[in-house]
């Protein structure tokens, strides 16, 4: 591995965006787990229903999908930068 391959100015942005991806997954997991087992662990007789679905399922899987979708659009639009991906022309 050559030295210059580790020192590219573009990596700073790229690394930040990769961390955003990790952050999104962690948030996604907490949302998904929290609603599913937080609301779904009681007995089925006492479930609340939203649009016909048990509340745990609605919040965890359906709303969770919508929220993740919105978050993904948000971070891509506002935090992801356009840049050239090509290997530098010089040398």
């Amino acid at each position: 591995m050559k030295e210059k391959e580790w020192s590219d100015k573009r990596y700073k942005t790229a690394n930040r965006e990769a961390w955003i991806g990790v952050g999104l997954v962690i948030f996604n997991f907490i949302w998904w787990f929290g609603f599913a087992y937080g609301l779904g662990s009681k007995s089925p007789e006492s479930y609340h229903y939203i649009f016909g679905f048990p509340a745990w399922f609605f919040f965890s899987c359906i709303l969770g999908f919508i929220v993740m979708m919105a978050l993904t659009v948000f971070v891509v639009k506002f935090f992801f930068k356009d840049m050239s991906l090509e290997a530098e022309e010089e040398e």
Partner: protein
Amino acid sequence: MNLEAVLPLFIFIVIVFMIGIWAGKFVSRSDSFLQEYFLGGRSLGGFILAMTLVTTYGSASSFLSGPGTAYNEGLGWVLLSMTQLATGYFVLMVLGKRFAIVTRKYKAVTIVDFLKERYQSKWVVILSAASILIFLFSAMSAQWIGGARLVQSLTGISYLTALCIFSLAVLVYVVVGGFRAVAITDGIQGIIMFLGTLILLVAVIIAGGGVSQIMHDLAAENPNLITPFGADGSLTPAYVSSFWVLVGVGVVALPQIAVRAMSYKNTKALHRGIIISTFVVGFIMLNMHLIGVFGKAVLPGIEIGDTVMPELAQQVLPGWVAGIVLAAPMAAIMTTVNSLLLMVSSTIVKDVYLNYIRPDANNKTIRKWSMGATAIIGVIVVLMSLQPPDLIIWLNLFSMGGLEAAFIWPIILGLYWRRGTRHGAIASMLTGVISYIIFETFYPQPFGMHSVVTSMLIALIAYVSGSLLLKKETVST
């Protein structure tokens, strides 16, 4: 069989076939055959990128076995399947621009190319090529059999004829058109999968008398069906959560997925790709598995899980619409086998033949070998599928976990961690794969989780300690 339903299916196969052949003209035009044939000339736009990513990943398991399991387990299995939402954004964000930049610097065309340049080690190349060949070959056979079985069950023709039709349709355009043909047909088939699941979901909800009614029916049959814990309460939170690793973040290490993260044109394509793939993967997975759950209330008593979706479609939809909807699982299988086929052939041609046997081959030879290898591998898989083993989902999941355990750290840490060395990579691949096979065989679900989690942890320890302890050549070149 019913002709009304079969006709749209065959029209669909013919259309895909023709588009594949059309895409083949790029191959003959291109000045760099390898880049074009195995990577589509790094020119994918956002939409095609997203579609080829999602469809390569969404295979027979998500379209046949998945709904079948959801049918038996209830909403708990939909919860489990939603762990796959992460693949939509995670793969492209985490490999991301850095992977695109590095692979362009390396002029890498395959994942093994990337690993070879990064670690400069023959053993890394051999181990990674071997894991790809073994695991992807078995995954591909399983999918191939699934495709033939589907044609068989839908049309009523014999397994052998079904296998020939299916193979011919896929093989010819992949051999002639390469990666671009695969990606473009993936785009079309992705739309079919998207619409097919939507139509079927709506029809099933109507047939079941609305969501409330269906939930009521399910709860009356077995209250566990509407809990997160599965039909007999055996889906524990730890087990279900471990699928975040197997089918969520771990997917980043599947070579057929990771190679797509170096095929896009520019950052604009990447950004669009992230948004579209998140939407499409979430939408398809949610709908597909809900169809299975709802199906239990609409059409109880189906014995074989894999037939739930075809039977439902024929029950609740008019014949010709069912034909269009059933093109969806067909598409799911075709889009997976076409990518796997190309992946296996690129491994043989680019990573083995060109690296070690004929590094000096000219363009014409490479071309002959690439197309020849693709065709021969295809024929071998077809021959193997003549005596099909059962348990599609098992084979499929086995190869998935094995590849993830082998590649996750060599790819991710190789990309981001400067001190990672060839020793770490070799140790990580060996311990990852071996421990995974041992766990799966003798001690499934250590700590209540899927064994891929433990194997990945062991592989991580091996990577880090191998890199730090055996320092000799860290600072070479």
